[in-house]
């Protein structure tokens, strides 16, 4: 290994869970982490939520939230032979942005909304390079061009909200590289972006690093991404390093069970195992062999149709000018059929109308036109009273497990409520029995019945949400990004559960996600949406193998491992 630019030794960070009161529980966010970032290379810090990866990154720049976080003694962060822990504020500010800079996850909130991007760039140049206003502005425009912002002369005066998410992240990167730092720390720089944009940003970072010969500490939860960009990989879990090594070694011969699990739990693109391996399997030591049995997907002609959607539209109106109204078509003429017992995957980037489709089908927002025939009746034209018996037949699981359960209800209350409304179960005792039964089915322990949502993890909450739907024995279950907010290892568990339930109850799924791999794994048919319209629909395997629409092609091209040097994601 070459000369080390940054070396972290035995880093320990404690967090006080602060709510303004005196003594608090302390969590050990980072428990003795050591790794090196060599000159002119990329080190990826990989881990799921709570692994301590971001805390480690923030500790390098001394940006840990002041009153709550504490770096324990014995820790050491050495940058070019200088100990960073214990620098004076003045020394730190001289270092930040000049020698070491950082890019964050949420570009929108990380840029100051009330200053133009030019102002924010110029600020750095003035501070560290001592440029005067004119020179700084010229340099800012140059930087914007370098990170690929079109029309940099104009955009330099734009405010962050006037740029797209990808452009905002480019501006962040421009700010980070403005003073030619030797080390760039990128903390999940692509996570908040649409898939097609993710790819561009990754490429940009990759190229910049190469061109400028700076080192990069790349932090991510997505092991798949790492393959394309990193030289070294550090895998973290619960504040500790599970494994570190060269990227090829990690991908080809992972030593740690957790690393192995992380690699295996993503749905592969080229196969469709009956079950996805989960972390527990690996940690238990019972490393599952490659399951050769595969699930057959696809809708064959003549399948029974449970839901037929025709020309479904949803328009929103915005005021424009004094009297004019601008129409925004969130959903335009969507028509499709859902086969009984099958899964229809819906993919598309943010704003494509996926969620509007779900809400409209659920009658949660009124449709502007079209019909949705369920057992021959148009669900959308029913009166609220008429719709009541159909309500339980179509149910939905939402994306955010933290928002979709009423925090003031216990799990039991959440499960009992729909049964009471629809008169399911003979009496309360019967309903309690059904609830407990379902809870077991979705993998929740019995005492959970009396617990409140905040006592559950994200995955457990989604299980409750699923159980809530099951109480009504729906025929159609819409999963609106139901697993997107979860860690990959948890995603796998939930996907397995959904699959098991479909097998048991024969429900039809409308599976909405931006995650192409997950959709492919789960779906019989896939529907691609863009700007409120369905651009392509076909059997899952067909569409992935042979996309017809140019947009579909573009989307699929952004899948990790498609056309990149290193084959990642679904390494076999």
């Amino acid at each position, binding site marked *: 290994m070459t000369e080390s630019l940054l070396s972290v030794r035995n880093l320990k960070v404690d967090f006080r869970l602060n709510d303004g009161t005196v003594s608090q529980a302390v969590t050990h966010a980072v428990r003795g982490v050591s790794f090196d970032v060599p000159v002119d290379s990329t080190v990826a810090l990989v881990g799921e939520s709570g692994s301590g990866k971001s805390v480690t990154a923030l500790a390098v720049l001394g*940006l840990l939230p002041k*009153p709550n976080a504490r770096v324990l003694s014995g820790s050491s962060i050495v940058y070019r032979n200088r100990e960073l822990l214990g620098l004076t504020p003045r020394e730190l500010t001289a*270092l930040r942005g*000049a020698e070491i800079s*950082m890019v964050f996850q949420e570009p929108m909130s*990380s840029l*100051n909304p*009330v200053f133009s991007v030019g102002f924010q760039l110029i600020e750095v140049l003035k501070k560290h390079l001592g440029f005067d206003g004119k020179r700084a502005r010229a340099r800012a425009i140059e930087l914007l061009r370098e990170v690929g912002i079109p029309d940099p002369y104009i955009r330099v005066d734009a405010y962050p909200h006037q740029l797209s998410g990808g452009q905002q992240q480019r501006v962040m990167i421009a700010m980070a590289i403005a003073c030619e730092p030797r080390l760039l720390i990128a903390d999940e720089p692509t996570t908040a972006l649409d898939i097609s944009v993710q790819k561009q940003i990754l490429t940009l970072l990759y190229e910049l690093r190469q061109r400028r010969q700076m080192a990069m500490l790349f932090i991510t939860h997505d092991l798949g991404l790492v393959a394309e960009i990193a030289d070294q990989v550090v895998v973290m879990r619960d504040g500790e390093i599970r494994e570190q090594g060269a990227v090829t070694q990690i991908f080809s011969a992972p030593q740690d069970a957790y690393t192995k699990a992380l690699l295996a739990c993503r749905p592969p693109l080229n196969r469709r195992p009956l079950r996805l391996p989960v972390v527990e399997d690996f940690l238990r030591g019972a490393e599952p062999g490659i399951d050769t049995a595969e699930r057959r997907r696809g809708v064959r002609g003549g399948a029974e149709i449970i839901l037929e959607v025709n020309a479904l539209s949803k328009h929103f109106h915005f005021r424009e000018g004094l009297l004019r109204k601008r129409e925004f078509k969130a959903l335009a003429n969507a028509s499709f059929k859902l086969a009984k017992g099958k899964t229809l995957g819906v993919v598309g980037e943010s704003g494509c109308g996926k969620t509007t489709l779900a809400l409209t089908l659920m009658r949660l927002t009124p449709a502007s036109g079209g019909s949705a025939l369920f057992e021959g009746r148009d669900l959308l034209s029913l009166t609220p009273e008429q719709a009541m018996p159909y309500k339980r037949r179509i149910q939905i699981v939402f994306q955010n497990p933290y928002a979709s359960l009423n925090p003031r209800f216990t799990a039991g209350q959440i499960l009992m409520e729909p049964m009471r409304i629809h008169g399911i179960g003979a009496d309360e005792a019967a309903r309690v029995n059904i609830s407990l039964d379902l809870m077991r089915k979705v993998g929740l322990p019995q005492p959970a019945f009396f617990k409140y949502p905040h006592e559950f993890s994200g995955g457990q909450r989604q299980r409750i949400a699923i159980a809530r739907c099951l109480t009504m024995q729906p025929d159609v279950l819409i999963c609106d990004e139901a697993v997107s907010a979860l860690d990959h290892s948890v995603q796998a568990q939930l996907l397995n559960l959904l699959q098991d339930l479909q097998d048991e109850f024969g429900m039809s799924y409308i599976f909405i996600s931006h995650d192409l791999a997950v959709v492919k794994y789960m779906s019989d048919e896939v529907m691609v949406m863009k700007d409120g319209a369905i651009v392509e629909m076909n059997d899952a395997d067909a569409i992935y193998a042979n996309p017809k629409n140019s947009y579909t092609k573009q989307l699929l091209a952004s899948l990790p491992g498609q056309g990149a040097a290193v084959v990642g994601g679904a390494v076999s």
Partner: protein
Amino acid sequence: MTAYMIRRLLQFVPTLLGVVLLVFMLFNWIGGDPAYLLAGKMSNPEQIENIRRQLGVDQPYYVQLWIFITQVVTGDFGVSWATNEKVSTIFATRLGPSLTVLLPMLIVGTLLSMVMALLVAYRRGSLTDRAIMIGCTVGQSISILVYIIVFQYVFAFQLGWFPVQGWGQDFVTNLIKFSALPVLVGVAVSLAPDTRLYRTFFLDEINQDYVRTARAKGMSESRVMGVHVLRNAAIPIVTHVMIQLPALLAGAFLIERFFSIPGIGREVLLAVERSDFPVIKAVTVYVALATLIFNLLADILYKAVDPRVQLK
């Protein structure tokens, strides 16, 4: 933008109509009959009837309401029943003194509490922060009446630093000499709650991601707080101040009364005591209008300081 303004201005109409109706009902229908007061010490029914005719209060309610609405539209509220002074003159002449006290009070108070709030927000959780916050809470818990009584007694009377009360003829004298103590009282009263409020504004901003970005860029703490945080926190503060002003116009009556400042608030009290309906009507409508306009101004100003805001 123009379309937005026009639409907002059109929205004034129903609100003003509501104000007109409510005021008309409250004061005309159920409120007092000024004829007896105006009739003087020895009034006979005939005189009362004459006065009622002169004032137009003998007309059916719908006619009076219609007259009121015409007055609102034309902006001509006629003359005060008590003094025969033109109502528009009353309003115009009382506005100056009110503003001479209110604006310095608002400006000094806002600046002071902003500085205090910024300081304690930066040192949040520290002993200073807690001490100042508890001090503010205590300060806030004392009635404005006590502030006025005690300040007037101590600063004007015992120490003689200020005139006890009064109002002069030229702006500078009024501002320097007569407004000083009322402004001081006003600032003392508003300092505690405003500091507390602005502190929360600052705290909301301090935890934002862009602050971390600014630090990561190597900006000094003073620049982070004084430029990045301040500019963002200024948005709710400016709005708060703008929206306060019309309410203060009639709301500073205690200060105006104790310091004999011929402002709007004192005029309102006088008008109510005298059942001077034209003045009450005018003040209500003007203040309501001012409230609406200042709300609109606050929104426009909001746009000026916050580029994210789109006025549609």
